[in-house]
C-alpha cells in the first residue's frame, strides 16, 4: 500500500507555513552572512564610542577653558583663591585660572601681542588690576568669560569671603506636569527604539523571495503549498531571526552597560535607569513593546515581502529600498507627531492606520494605563497582517506566477515590471 495514502491529503496552512519558516530560519541563522548581520549594528556603536572618546579627548586638549592671569603676583593669588571659593556654587561655569609664566616679573608683558603670536593655550588672558581688570582674547572667548571673570575679580577684592547660606532640599517624587512630561520622554524613547529596530530588521524581508525566484524554487513551493503559507512562513522566519538579533544586541548592550554605565551616561547624557516608569508599569510595557515590535515587523514585513516579491533581481530590491525607507520614516513621523496630542483625531488616525498603529499604541502604553485599548489594537493589527499576507500572496500569484486575471490595482505597473520574466507559454 502506498504510504502516502495513510497520510492526510494536505498540510494545514499552519503546517505548511511552519515548513517554510523552519527552513528559512535555519538557513539564515546558519549562514556566515548572519554573523555580519549581527555584528553590523554593533560596529557603529563601537566606532561611535571610540570616536566619541577620542573626539572628547581632542576637544579637551584643543578647546581650552583656561584663563591666564597676568596681573601682579598678589592679585593673581587673590583671583585663584576667589575662584576656588566659588567653584562649589558655580562649578563648570567658571574658567580654570592659571598664572602666565611669561608675564611673571615682566612689567612690559604685552598680553595682546602674546595672544596674537599664538603662544600658550589660553582662552583669554586677564591683565590690569582687580579694580580695573582687562580681558584679552578673541571676541567669542572674551564674551564667554567676561561675566565669570568679573564675578571672581569682585570676590577677590572683598576683604571678607562671602558666606553662602545652605539651601535645604525638599524633593517630591512627581507632579502632574512632571509625570506627563516624563512619560512623554519614555514614550518617545520607546517609539524611537521600536522604529530603529523595525527599520533595521524589516528591510531584510524585501529580498526574501528573490532567492526562490532566481533559483526557480518558487515553482516547487507554489505547486506544493498555497502561496499565502509561503508568505506567512517567510515572514515568521524573519521575525524569528529578528528576535535572535535583538537578543544578541540586547545582551551586548547589557554587557556594555554593566561595564561602562557611568561613561555611557556621561558621554551620551542619557541614563536609561532614570527613565520615568510608563503608565502600565515596566513589565507590561516591555511585554507590549515586544508584541508591538512583532506586529510592526509583521505589518511592514508583509508589505515589503509583497513589494520585494515583485522584484526580479537584487538590484531591483536595492532600488526599492529607498522608497521603502521613506515610507517607514513617514509612518514613524505620523506616530511621533501624535505623542503630544493624546485623544486627538490625528492620534486616532495613527492608531487606526495599521502601519503606524504599533508605534502609536506603544506610546499610549507609556502614557495611559488602560489595557483594553491594547487588546483591541492588537486584534486589529493581527487582522491587518492577515489581510496584507493574503493580498500579497494573491498579487504574487497573479502578477508573478501569472495565475488568473490581473487585478485592476497595480496591473499596469507590475505588468510592465514583470514583462518577460515569466515564461508565458512554456
Amino acid at each position: 500500500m502506498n504510504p502516502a495514502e495513510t497520510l492526510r491529503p494536505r498540510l494545514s496552512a499552519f503546517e505548511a507555513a511552519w515548513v517554510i519558516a523552519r527552513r528559512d530560519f535555519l538557513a539564515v541563522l546558519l549562514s556566515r552572512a548572519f554573523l555580519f548581520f549581527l555584528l553590523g549594528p554593533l560596529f557603529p556603536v563601537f566606532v561611535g564610542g571610540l570616536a566619541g572618546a577620542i573626539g572628547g579627548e581632542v576637544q579637551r586638549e584643543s578647546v581650552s577653558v583656561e584663563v591666564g592671569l597676568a596681573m601682579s603676583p598678589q592679585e593673581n593669588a587673590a583671583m585663584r583663591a576667589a575662584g576656588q571659593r566659588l567653584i562649589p556654587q558655580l562649578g563648570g561655569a567658571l574658567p580654570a585660572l592659571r598664572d602666565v609664566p611669561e608675564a611673571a616679573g615682566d612689567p612690559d608683558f604685552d598680553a595682546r601681542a602674546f595672544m596674537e603670536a599664538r603662544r600658550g593655550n589660553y582662552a583669554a588672558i586677564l591683565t590690569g588690576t582687580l579694580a580695573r581688570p582687562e580681558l584679552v582674547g578673541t571676541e567669542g572667548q572674551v564674551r564667554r568669560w567676561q561675566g565669570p571673570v568679573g564675578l571672581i575679580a569682585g570676590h577677590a577684592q572683598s576683604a571678607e569671603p562671602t558666606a553662602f547660606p545652605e539651601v535645604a532640599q525638599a524633593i517630591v517624587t512627581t507632579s502632574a506636569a512632571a509625570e506627563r512630561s516624563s512619560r512623554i520622554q519614555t514614550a518617545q524613547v520607546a517609539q524611537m527604539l521600536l522604529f530603529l529596530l523595525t527599520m533595521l530588521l524589516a528591510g531584510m524581508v524585501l529580498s526574501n523571495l528573490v532567492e526562490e525566484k532566481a533559483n526557480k524554487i518558487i515553482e516547487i513551493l507554489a505547486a506544493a503549498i498555497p502561496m499565502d503559507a509561503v508568505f506567512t512562513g517567510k515572514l515568521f522566519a524573519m521575525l524569528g531571526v529578528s528576535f535572535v538579533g535583538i537578543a544578541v544586541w540586547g545582551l551586548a548592550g547589557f554587557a556594555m552597560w554593566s561595564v561602562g554605565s557611568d561613561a555611557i551616561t556621561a558621554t551620551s547624557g542619557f541614563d536609561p535607569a532614570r527613565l520615568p516608569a510608563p503608565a502600565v508599569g515596566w513589565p507590561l510595557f516591555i511585554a507590549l513593546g515586544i508584541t508591538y515590535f512583532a506586529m510592526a515587523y509583521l505589518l511592514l514585513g508583509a508589505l515589503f515581502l509583497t513589494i520585494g516579491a515583485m522584484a526580479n533581481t537584487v538590484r531591483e530590491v536595492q532600488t526599492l529600498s529607498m522608497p521603502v525607507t521613506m515610507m517607514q520614516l513617514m509612518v514613524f513621523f505620523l506616530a511621533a507627531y501624535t505623542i503630544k496630542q493624546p485623544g486627538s483625531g490625528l492620534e486616532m488616525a495613527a492608531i487606526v492606520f495599521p502601519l503606524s498603529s504599533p508605534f502609536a499604541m506603544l506610546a499610549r502604553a507609556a502614557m495611559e494605563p488602560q489595557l483594553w485599548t491594547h487588546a483591541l489594537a492588537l486584534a486589529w493589527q493581527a487582522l491587518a497582517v492577515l489581510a496584507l499576507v493574503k493580498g500579497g500572496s494573491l498579487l504574487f500569484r497573479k502578477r508573478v506566477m501569472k495565475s488568473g486575471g490581473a487585478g485592476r490595482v497595480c496591473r499596469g505597473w507590475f505588468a510592465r515590471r514583470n514583462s518577460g520574466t515569466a515564461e508565458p507559454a512554456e
Partner: protein
Amino acid sequence: MAVSEQNLPGNRGTGFTTIPDDARPLAIEAKGLVKSFDGTRAVDGVDISVPEGAIYGVLGPNGAGKTTTLRMLLGIIDPDEGVRRVFGHDRPHDIGRLIGYLPEERGLYPAMKAIDAIAFMGALRGLPLKEGRRRAVELLERHGLGHAADRQIRQLSKGMAQTVQLLGTLVHRPKLVVLDEPFSGLDAINQGKLEMMIRALADEGVTVIFSTHVIHHAERLCEGVAIIAGGKVPYAGSVESARDRIPAQVRLETRAREGAWLSALPPETRRNGDFFQFPLPETGVEPLLRRLIEGEAGILSLSIERAGLHDAFVAIAGEAAARQLEADQAEERA
C-alpha cells in the same frame, strides 16, 4: 505530392478522447483549459484525461503550451476558463501529499545538503522531516549518490543535482508524478535511467505524466499522449490510436522511372529518392501490384510499414510543428 493534414482520417477538433476501453478511474481530467498571457492565448481549450497508473506524455514543440498546461493541472496557476480535476479534486493543493512535481527549470537551495533538500521537498508534501531524511539516504544510496548525501547542492554536478531534485519529487511516495521535460539536459545514460525509473513507478501503480519534445521518449514509455501545438490539443489518446490514425505506409522501389503505371499510384504518393511512398490503399496492395506489373514498372522492392508516433505527430500537429519539434531536439543535442 505531400501528405496533407486534410487527407487524414479521424477527428482533428478538440480531440477529447481517453485511452480507449479503459475502465480505470481518472487521475487527471481537464476540459476546455484556457490560459492567456498579456492577451495571447498560450493554451486554448485543452482537454486531457489520464487514467490512474498510466504513463502519459504531453508531446509538443517548445512554446506549444505544455508547461502552462501542467502548471494549470497542478494548481500553480489557475486557468482563465475550463475545469481541471486531479483525483477528483478541483483544487490540487487539497491533495498535495499525493502529487510529486519536477519543474522544467530545476531549482534547489544551493546551500542545502542533498539529504536536506530531499527531506525538505518531502516536508512540503507532508512527510515528517525525520522520515524524509531516512528515505533520502535510502534513495540516494539506491541511485548511487549515497556519498553525496552530506554535500551541498552547489557542490554537486548538474546531473547529480537533477537526480537529487527528482528524488525529492518522489520521496513522499506520491500517487501522481508530474515531470516537466524530465529528459532535458540529461545524457543518454541518465535518460535511460530515468526511463527505467518512470517504468518502475508505473509498475507500482503511480500515474506519471511528463512533457517532452522528444518523440522517442513518449513512444517508448507512454500508453497515452496528448499532442499539443499552438496551445491546442489536436489529439489526446493512446499512442496506438495515434499511430493507427495514419494508414500503414507503402514503400516502393521500381526499375522504371516513367510510364503509364505511375497513374496507378495513389494521389498522396510522394517521391523520396528512388522510392515512392504512399499510404496503404484501403483496397490493399493486390490491385495495385497487378497494375504495376501490367504497366511494367519493374518492382525492385515493396514494403508495408506501420506508422510511428513521429508520422502521427506530423499528420496530427502539422509539418510546421514537426519541424519545430525536430529543431528543438537538434538544439538540445547541440
